[in-house]
């Protein structure tokens, strides 16, 4: 996984540069997401993993599937990946691309897990606090996780702020040992 991320980095950097030049970051972001989603499809995965499928057929197939969602440049990138046998890197490239985009636009992707749905006001004040704590603008995705029992768990990249009841109970369990 980590090795794949290393391989994907130059591709992602190149794509992001090109996207910025052509001012098409949003479009690129969408199509990379779509292409990664296609690769996750079981039937496609079998074809991609099969070494007997020749490169031309594979790129035609991919282009056919993605046709309506991608631009010509996206298509060229896809062909390049197929030619270099690096199609498996696509999800990593998409992820890294998002990271570059977030950095460039000055925000962080934050995942928030709560046990119960947050009210609108709560969400707003929470966003403000998090932005202050992280020192950046945030894009917040909220998900419900009943197993937390209560409280919130925030995940921003590698950083985790655990304010959930579950986390505190685990912490207490360790302290009492």
């Amino acid at each position, binding site marked *: 996984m980590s090795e794949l991320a290393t391989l994907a980095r130059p591709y992602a950097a190149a794509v992001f540069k090109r996207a910025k030049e052509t001012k098409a970051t949003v479009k690129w972001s969408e199509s990379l997401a779509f292409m990664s989603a296609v690769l996750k499809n079981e039937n496609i995965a079998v074809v991609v993993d099969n070494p007997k499928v020749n490169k031309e057929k594979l790129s035609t197939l991919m282009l056919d599937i993605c046709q309506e969602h991608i631009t010509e440049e996206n298509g060229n990138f896809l062909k390049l990946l197929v030619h270099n046998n690096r199609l498996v890197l696509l999800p990593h490239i998409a992820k890294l691309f998002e990271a570059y985009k977030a950095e460039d636009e000055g925000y962080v992707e934050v995942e928030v897990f709560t046990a119960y749905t947050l009210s609108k006001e709560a969400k707003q004040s929470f966003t403000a606090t998090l932005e202050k704590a992280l020192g950046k603008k945030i894009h917040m995705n909220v998900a419900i996780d009943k197993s937390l029992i209560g409280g919130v768990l925030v995940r921003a990249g590698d*950083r985790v702020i*655990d304010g959930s009841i579950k986390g505190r109970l685990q912490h207490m369990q360790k302290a009492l040992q």
Partner: protein
Amino acid sequence: MQLNPSEISDLIKKKIENFDLSAEAHTEGTVVSVTDGIVRVHGLSEAMQGEMLEFPGNTFGMALNLERDSVGVVVLGNYQHITEGDTVKCTGKILEVPVGEALLGRVVDALGNPIDGKGAIDTTETAPIEKIAPGVIARQSVDQPVQLGLKSIDAMIPVGRGQRELIIGDRQTGKTAIAIDAIINQKGTGIKCIYVAIGQKRSSIANVVRKLEEHGAMAHTIIVAASASESAALQFIAPYTGCSMGEFFRDRGEDALIIYDDLTKQAWAYRQVSLLLRRPPGREAYPGDVFYLHSRLLERASRINAAEVEKLTGGRVKGKTGSLTALPIIETQGGDVSAFVPTNVISITDGQIFLESNLFNSGIRPAVNAGLSVSRVGGAAQTKIIKKLGGGTRLDLAQYRELAAFAQFASDLDESTRKQIERGQRVTELMKQNQYSPMSVAQMAVSLFAANEGFLDSIEVNKVLDFEAALQSYMKSEHSELMNNINATGDFNNEISSNLRTAIETFIKTHSW
């Protein structure tokens, strides 16, 4: 310790009261691969070199390789339950172990957990295992002796407090025996001992513990054991653990002695860890930093001055210097001291005690090769009397070695050569000493005095040890005041010299052996 249920619930209540309820922030990563105790973790972008990382199941690891997308972690202990996808947490701490007086008399593993079945260790203090050695300003030169209790070593290769003296030799040459005698001899001197066993059989470690207990030496000793069955990571960190425990005493103005038995096995363990972390191998497949591995460890053994002790204790201890003396052990293969690790450690230490298997097999025990063994700083620390009397011994043996080859032509040799050979044979014989019977300064002085003044020359070579034993018991019973005086002051003057002479002369006249 017995607790009744209400006390237990009180304890729990107290812990819950003091429990910190604030949200916990940390960095997390996921396990990518687990191979032979090495775990690759994705994420953990804020991990530090040497940081303690927490795995599920109360297991800890140490971050050793920090790469762009992943961290190479060595698991400290069992790694069988760690699987791909597990989350790993940063703790923000460098690996720490418990230290303190409470550890004396205990056997602990490389992480400081007790393994002697005597219950928890009652100490709250901890210290990081990797510390930078004291600086130049903090140091003081070595000028107090550590008596190992072995005639041949204390007379010819003296060790001072704060010195690093290597014990080197093939397998089965009595390296550990010297170390154990050194620990036993520290009983009542106030020097705390730490014995670090690396990659040894559990049975050998149990033996050492039993022998120390038998001789009443466990009370001032800590044993850090990373046996052969424990993971390479633990064997690699064990010496640093022991060193931190020793530094605790040094930094409080006390004296400590640490024995690393042996650093060859630690280098092997480190080689294994490094190769599994895919660091490039160098000479003998050791990684590039194997010199630093030992130099940073041995550099921490030092003598620090009173000002530094005062600073470190916050003014509680004044006017006392602290020291940590190290006796690292290196095992050579077939007497080859020019192998990689032995040459490294020889160049780091302040001298070496060289043990030889042919000496050992010909019955000279301890099998010290007096010619190749040196102590670069110990001379300044020797007691006056041993320094005065030991010098002659060293010279006698050096001259004897040159002439030893001619010993078989004894009848054809001139008078002075024959005398030198005979003196050498007797001194060599006198340097023999049984295991677990360390000698005091006065006892050594008597034996050395007898040799220097030529009292041994009229005694048959195979009777030398009997003579010595009889003389020692005579001195103990008839001249205990003189002996106590020598032990207390360590001085040597005309009065002591003439007292010793008359005592030995009377003994020769009146006793048989």
